[in-house]
């Protein structure tokens, strides 16, 4: 999946969340920043945790270095990609 795919994946995910209830799919895909979508920085972390729960069953911890990247949609898409990649890594024995 490329960056654009992750932008669409974020839009699909956000539309299932209370924070995205008043947003259309097109609004989310077309946005540049989370502020445009009316999402606060703390709510964005909540969304990230919900994403992790949904797609990795809570198997990935939120990393501090991700937080500054959650201000724009491209950054969010890149973090989601990293989360999926982390979840796909085989467990180390």
């Amino acid at each position, binding site marked *: 999946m490329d960056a654009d795919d992750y932008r669409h994946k974020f839009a699909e995910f956000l539309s299932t969340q209370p924070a995205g209830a008043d947003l259309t799919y097109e609004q989310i895909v077309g946005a540049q920043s989370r502020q445009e979508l009316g999402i*606060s*920085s*703390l709510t964005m*972390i*909540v969304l990230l*945790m919900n994403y992790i729960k949904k797609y990795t069953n809570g198997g990935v911890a*939120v990393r*501090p*270095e*991700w*937080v*500054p990247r959650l201000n724009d949609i491209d950054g969010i898409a890149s973090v989601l990609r990293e989360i999926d990649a982390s979840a796909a890594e085989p467990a180390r024995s």
Partner: protein
Amino acid sequence: MSDTVIRGLTAEQVESFKENGFLGPFDLYAEDEAPLVWSQAMIDMVTSENKPHDSTIINYDRHLDCDTLSRHIAQPAIVHKLRSLMDDDIMCWKTHIFEKEPGDSGTGWHQVEAFTVFESEDVSYPSLRYTEESTAATQELTVWTAFSSADKEHGCLRFLPGSHKQWYYDETKPMSYNVENKSHDFFGYDYAELKLDKNWDPNEQEIVDMELKAGQFVIFLAKCVHGSNPNISGDKRVGLASRYVSPSVRVYEHINRLSGFGDAIDLDYHGGVMVSGEDKYGYNRMHENNLNGFPFPKVESNGR
């Protein structure tokens, strides 16, 4: 010379503080580390199972449930300097997050000491009641730590040197709240309403802009007239004020609830945290662990 002495204040710095009412900047976190510390604090805020209150407007006291901030308030680099100014027994009684978004205005000049809280238009109580005189330089201190760049462009703090020596404002009087009014530049209030001399304004030539890099802090007396510049940068400015008093000070003695900024919180959760020394008075409820069970660190008298 021991580490303790090195990390405390020199006699000259103590004198400078007594004269000016503020001192800094001091290094705490590395410049690239500070934003990550704040990011972890934000994660703590979200994952906390026992928040002190539910308000997102009144940004007080998250050191009581966020492990990162529980550690921050007792950082030895901070506590050693506080000891040089207020003896060994030091209690953190409050923290306050100060975020300034790009384009946000500066904060108007103000000075406080008792942190008066209004129950109604006519009834007010001091948050702090000082019960004894001290031979130390002070019994109350604020440490303001920058977690992002806080230079002039980003809206740094400003001080009027020496202004702690007299009152320019009457903090016991109520103020009107109006977020739409531009003269209400003190978080929606107009602190200028409290001026003792309506014609007085800080002398522009004397004002000191306290520019901080991310990870640096400044120590000041809340009674020293201070404010902040507008944020004309494209980045958010993030700071945390942690406030300390001697445990001989009674905190929120007659106050059960705080109102302001269009919201209110109950103080059931509140308690002091000893970051150094002992509480020999028993005046205040104390927390040994934060609300999620994390033990508060304390700087011992051997400096560790």
